[in-house]
């Protein structure tokens, strides 16, 4: 039996509500943690079916028509089994939720670094060397790789104008008009993308490092030209994704094709450099922000114009403006985004697509406005909060930004701060504080899950949902334990297998709430069945401590089940709530930094985030998610950026030595405060997303603190020592 549900409004009276003080929300150990600390967690590349062969992808050194100059020679290297160039191989990774093949055909290279061939050998060393030996020539006209040379794609333009922004700008008492840039960024999950493909007859099993199996299966089947039912994907452990594993990557299709051709299982693991080149990146952006305000700081107009890029044919456009639609009230508004077509590696979703760079930049502009108005930056924001979503007038499902701002301000000790920059000095170091608001749209995605109750009274949660470090194993177990009145240890959670009901997949901060709700619905279905057996209404039934109780009738679950298992299935569809209300998550980030007056180096001394993210499902894993996001904000502000070669667009710093993700020493203790926010429009669990919000304000809190410390305003990210220095000198 399946319980179908869609979130159409705030009323969920027919569904049971979670209790207070139960397993839901508890600060609990990560349930897959033991496997992770002992090394027994098995990631995609670690499956070793008998007869496993090893494939290495080969990149295009240029663009145009691709020719393998010495494939025959390479094929004769002892141990080499195959040099594959197959038109079904994919050029770009699939975009998130594509559900169909991405662009295929590797006889043509559209960007430098594109995969164009696969070399398979009996061991990794041979395959790697043979791939290095393989010579690729590319012939074609030179293609645009610089944003200033690319063509704007008119079909991709986004524009929303409310009121008369031009007049607001020209009549403003106080006006900010600044242009900011952010570089291309990469996800850089610690586990490189990997696939182990194995055929049994016409059926493919692929162990992959993937975030969204229900879509990935369709993408892979479509790429191979087979029925989705013939494809089974497994991904019980995924070593991070951050958007780069939303869609299938080149390794999946290449491994499947080679395994088919050779009649043996084939593994393809991306080299770290390939992780940079062949998976989707976050587009570089150029953003012009205009803020028109009265002297009291009240916004009369706002403008946010962005330019981003992507490869020809790709439909993804970094949604830079997403947060600007609803963060602040202003009667006159100009929002506009343009996409330029460039032959750089494809752009796609990277953790918090849109807000990560859009909110970050906008919140720096707000700081500039606060300075110009002479108003405290927290007060400026509080003064401009909208009653309803500007433009649409949709109500907010819950609006907790003011709470986050004031609570964050109080716990940080913000009010001690001097209003002017360059007031505190410790030796060579300028000390300053900064803050920013954080907003991120909240999304719900279709999700299904099954919960089985064994005759002994243990529960098993089953869905193809993934845990990419997000804590899915933990929270789904807690949800089922809460729903069925069991101890968490009496619940098993099986994830990452397309033989199981299709969860939402991990991405866009929607995984926990979407798939979690499906699990809750499955439990509700079981409750109803048990209530029926007990002869009462589901509402009257109490499930606790492994017992079912109706009035005075209390029975153990094994007694109720009478030797038979019981199974329920839950199915969530996003409903009308998405149109009726603006749903978002809210936060405020405060930071203290030290800026070295000699070198321009920045050290973040404090970073505090106060977040309202719906119901918190597990305090411990939620805190880690928030801290992760905040560190990404730190990286975005200070250290990260891909350099594209100006001549051919290839990523120059495509390794972890030269692309600087923050190291331990860059990150202070991260202080996280989670506010209770039971959003009534978020379904029976009242849960929303948390994984991305932390990025959205942290970078700007740091950049604003840099300005407060030393007076240097960084508008071209990241704030590396040289850029700070050019302001200090």
């Amino acid at each position, binding site marked *: 039996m399946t319980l179908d549900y869609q979130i159409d409004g705030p009323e969920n009276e027919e569904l049971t509500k979670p209790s207070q003080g139960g397993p839901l929300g508890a600060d609990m150990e*990560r349930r897959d943690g033991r496997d992770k600390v*002992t090394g027994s967690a098995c990631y995609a590349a670690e499956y*070793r079916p008998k007869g496993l062969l090893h494939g290495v992808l080969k990149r295009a050194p240029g663009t145009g028509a691709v020719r393998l100059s010495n494939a025959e020679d390479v094929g004769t290297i002892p141990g080499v089994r195959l040099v594959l160039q197959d038109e079904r191989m994919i050029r770009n990774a699939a975009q998130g939720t594509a559900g169909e093949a991405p662009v295929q055909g590797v006889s043509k290279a559209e960007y430098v670094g594109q995969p164009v061939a696969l070399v398979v050998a009996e061991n990794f060393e041979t395959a790697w060397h043979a791939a290095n030996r393989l010579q690729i020539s590319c012939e074609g006209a030179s293609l645009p790789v610089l944003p200033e040379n690319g063509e704007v794609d008119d079909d991709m333009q986004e524009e929303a104008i409310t009121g008369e922004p031009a007049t607001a700008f020209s009549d403003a008492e106080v006006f900010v008009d600044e242009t900011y840039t952010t570089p291309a960024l990469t996800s850089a999950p*610690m*586990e490189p993308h990997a696939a182990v493909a194995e055929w049994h007859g016409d059926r493919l099993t692929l162990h992959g490092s993937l975030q969204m199996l229900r879509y990935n299966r369709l993408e892979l089947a479509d790429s191979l030209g087979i029925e989705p039912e013939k494809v089974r994907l497994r991904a019980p452990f995924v070593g*991070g994704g951050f958007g780069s594993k939303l869609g299938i990557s080149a390794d999946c299709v290449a491994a499947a094709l080679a395994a088919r051709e050779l009649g043996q299982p084939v593994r393809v693991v991306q080299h770290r450099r390939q992780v940079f080149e062949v998976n989707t990146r976050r587009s570089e952006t150029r953003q012009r922000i205009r803020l028109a305000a009265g002297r009291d700081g009240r916004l009369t107009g706002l403008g946010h114009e962005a330019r981003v890029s992507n490869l020809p044919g790709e439909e993804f456009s970094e949604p830079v403006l997403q947060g600007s639609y609803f963060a602040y009230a202003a009667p006159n508004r100009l929002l506009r985004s343009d996409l330029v077509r460039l032959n750089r590696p494809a752009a796609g979703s990277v953790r918090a697509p849109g807000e990560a760079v859009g909110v970050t930049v906008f919140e720096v502009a707000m700081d500039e406005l606060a300075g110009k108005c002479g108003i405290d930056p927290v007060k400026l924001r509080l003064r401009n909060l909208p009653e309803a979503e500007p433009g649409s007038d949709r109500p907010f499902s819950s609006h907790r930004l003011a709470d986050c701002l004031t609570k964050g301000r109080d716990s940080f000790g913000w009010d001690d701060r001097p209003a002017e920059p360059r007031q505190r000095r410790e030796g060579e170091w300028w000390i300053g504080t900064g803050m920013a608001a954080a907003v991120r749209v909240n999304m719900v995605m279709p999700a299904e899950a099954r919960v089985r109750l064994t005759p002994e009274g243990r529960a098993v949660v089953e869905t193809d949902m993934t845990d990419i470090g997000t804590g899915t194993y933990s929270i789904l177990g807690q949800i089922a334990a809460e729903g069925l009145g069991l101890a968490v240890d009496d619940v098993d959670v099986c994830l990452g297998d397309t033989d199981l009901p299709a969860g939402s997949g991990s991405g866009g901060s929607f995984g926990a709430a979407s798939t979690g709700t499906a699990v809750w619905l499955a439990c509700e279905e079981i409750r109803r069945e048990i209530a029926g057996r007990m002869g009462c209404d589901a509402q009257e039934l109490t499930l606790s401590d492994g017992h079912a109780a109706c009035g005075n009738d209390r029975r153990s679950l094994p007694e109720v089940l009478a030797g038979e298992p019981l199974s329920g299935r839950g199915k969530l569809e996003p409903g009308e709530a998405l149109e009726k209300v603006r749903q978002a998550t809210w936060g405020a980030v405060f930071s203290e930094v030290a800026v070295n007056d000699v070198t321009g180096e920045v050290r973040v001394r404090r970073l505090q985030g106060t977040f309202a993210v719906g119901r918190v499902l597990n305090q411990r894993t939620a805190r880690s998610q928030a801290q992760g996001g905040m560190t*990404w904000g730190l990286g975005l502000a200070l250290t990260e950026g891909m350099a594209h070669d100006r001549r051919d667009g290839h990523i120059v710093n495509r390794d*972890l030595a030269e692309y600087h993700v923050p*190291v331990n020493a860059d*990150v202070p203790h991260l202080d996280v405060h989670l506010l209770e926010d039971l959003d009534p429009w978020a379904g029976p669990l009242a849960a929303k997303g948390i994984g991305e919000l932390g990025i959205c304000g942290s970078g700007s809190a740091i950049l604003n603190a840099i300005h407060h410390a030393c007076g240097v305003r960084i508008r071209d990210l990241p704030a590396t020592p040289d850029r700070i220095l050019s302001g200090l000198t």
Partner: protein
Amino acid sequence: MQTTLTVNGTRHQLDLDPRVTLLDALREHIGLTGAKKGCDHGQCGACTVIADGRRINACLTLAVMHADAEIVTVEGLAEGKTLSAMQQAFLDHDGMQCGYCTPGQLCSATAMLEEARAGRASHVTEDLEGTTRLTRDEITERMSGNLCRCACYSGIVAAIEKVAAE
């Protein structure tokens, strides 16, 4: 070529292409996949193992160079079912998310405590001839050879502080 590797107290007789790194020998030839391949170039620390008491990047050394060494991987940190203090502290403080860097973090942290006990200095040590105190700054500097993209640094540092204080 024939070589012997001693890993977590067990001797393994192997016939290896000299190109096989210590990391690939562990993962592909011995079947110990705890040590991870994150970059294969010494840039991330996911492959960190302890060789003769020292933490090293298993990806940047050849297996045949370690015939006499005692290698400890993450699989060798626990005593049977009993987790090491560091492993337990990582669980208590959620010093992991995706888990891919975790084995390297654990081996690194375990060996790092020994380095500090032996009085080894770090980049942030004020006095090269003074005693070593494991402040937060010392821990973060000494653990900076292990990247964590999920960014569990707060939990990792808290876990290490707890074990260091014991």
